[in-house]
């Protein structure tokens, strides 16, 4: 069964400032889609609207044909990770994943499984406040994988990971997409996106400035980095 993430003409205002303007793109099953843009471009806002945390002023963001807020057991459909662990610092990692599992009717054995999978098997009883940035990131990934979801939505997943962790997540995401899953990740790190993504959505100042398979977006530029600066720089216009 395939699962499409689609964002259609999204508009979001904060006060009088428009932080997203007509943002439209899709993340298709079997592919890794990279949402690329400089800091403050609107990547996180887009993902937060897709995940039902923030409301859009106009437009739709759908998981298959439904908004996230209508999903019955969302963790079984979309696994997601925002920046930070998302766990109160005084909890243990195991307690955090256990309450998440209970809220979606996920078997409790999954908690130990995902902790092992992300390399935190020995740290399940440690309070999250004692975790390093990299460990928090791994806990966030464990939470995303908990419900064996078909789609993964990850905000800056490689932040704070060591080189070994970055390689591990690359293999993990590739495997997820090759098995028919959908992966949407945001990043401002071009090299990582270049190596992981099949499709690219470049966003700058709240607008999509380029979207498509990575080779098409970077066609005409020597590297992704050149393409990125040309597309998002102060003189760039939409293509």
């Amino acid at each position: 069964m395939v699962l499409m993430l689609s964002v259609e003409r999204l508009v979001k205002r904060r006060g009088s400032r428009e932080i997203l303007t007509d943002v439209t793109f899709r993340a298709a099953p079997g592919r890794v889609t990279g949402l690329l843009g400089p800091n403050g471009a609107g990547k996180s806002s887009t993902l937060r609207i897709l995940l039902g945390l923030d409301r859009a002023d106009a437009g739709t963001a759908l998981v298959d044909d439904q908004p996230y807020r209508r999903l019955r057991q969302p963790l079984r459909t979309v696994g997601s990770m925002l920046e930070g662990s998302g766990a109160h610092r005084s909890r243990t990692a195991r307690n955090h994943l256990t309450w998440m599992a209970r809220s979606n009717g996920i078997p409790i054995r999954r908690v130990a499984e995902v902790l092992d999978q992300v390399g935190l098997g020995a740290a399940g009883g440690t309070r999250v406040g004692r975790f390093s940035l990299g460990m928090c990131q791994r806990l966030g990934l464990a939470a995303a994988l908990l419900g064996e979801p078909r789609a993964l939505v990850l905000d800056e997943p490689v932040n704070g990971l060591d080189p070994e962790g970055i390689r591990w997540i690359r293999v993990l995401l590739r495997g997820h997409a090759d098995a028919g899953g959908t992966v949407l990740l945001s990043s401002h790190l071009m090299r990582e996106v270049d190596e992981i993504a099949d499709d690219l959505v470049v966003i700058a100042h709240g607008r999509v400035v380029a979207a498509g398979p990575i080779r098409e977006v970077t066609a005409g530029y020597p590297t992704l980095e050149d393409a990125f600066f040309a597309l998002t720089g102060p003189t760039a216009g939409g293509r």
Partner: protein
Amino acid sequence: MIRACARATVAELTKLFGLPAALAAVFGTIGAAVAISGALAASPVGANEPVAVVLQAVPYLQAGTISLGVLAVGTEYADGQIHTTLLCVPDRLAVPAAKTIAYLAWAAGTVVAALAVGLLTARIALATRDVPVVTDGFPWTVVGAAVHLALIGLLGLAFAALLRAVVSALVVTLSLVLVVSPVLDAVTPHARYLPDQAGGLLYLPDPARVLTPATGLLVLLGWVVVIGSAAVTAFRRRDA
């Protein structure tokens, strides 16, 4: 819908169990019940009857259930946990409902244990002073005190949901209940409509007989409902 709410409630119960501060609030309340009942029963000017002793300790125990209620909701707003909660349970009504039920379950256990242990302590302390213990029938006032304690903590929970922070919710609720209320009680009869004094009629007689225990309970519930609905309305509208 019912199953989703049940799952959310089980998750909230698990969440409270994993919060060391919530466990500290529970055991702190029970410990305070022992210490205060013991002190009151041992004091020569105190009451000479276990139920009366425990009822005198109730105003202090309010701090315990208020802390529990504030922590249950206020800690969501530290470390971005509220995002995780809403990713797990996107329904903006199911989350407050599940929180309320989970809090009430924990609070009920806490106050029943605290009042029972307090009664026992008072009985022992009075016995050591050779005060004859009189018991006449089932102490319904203690049940009223338990209901009051659970609901006053629910007021703390509602304030925490409105203010989205542990410390400010604690300051507001504790000052209202423990500082402002006794101060105003000295000057105006309208103080009886403050949440703690209205709820207090569940276990204390009202000499003025303006409110009955039932109407007092309604006034306290009214406070909880008004502040709780303001919090839920804001929660549904604003971005997480």
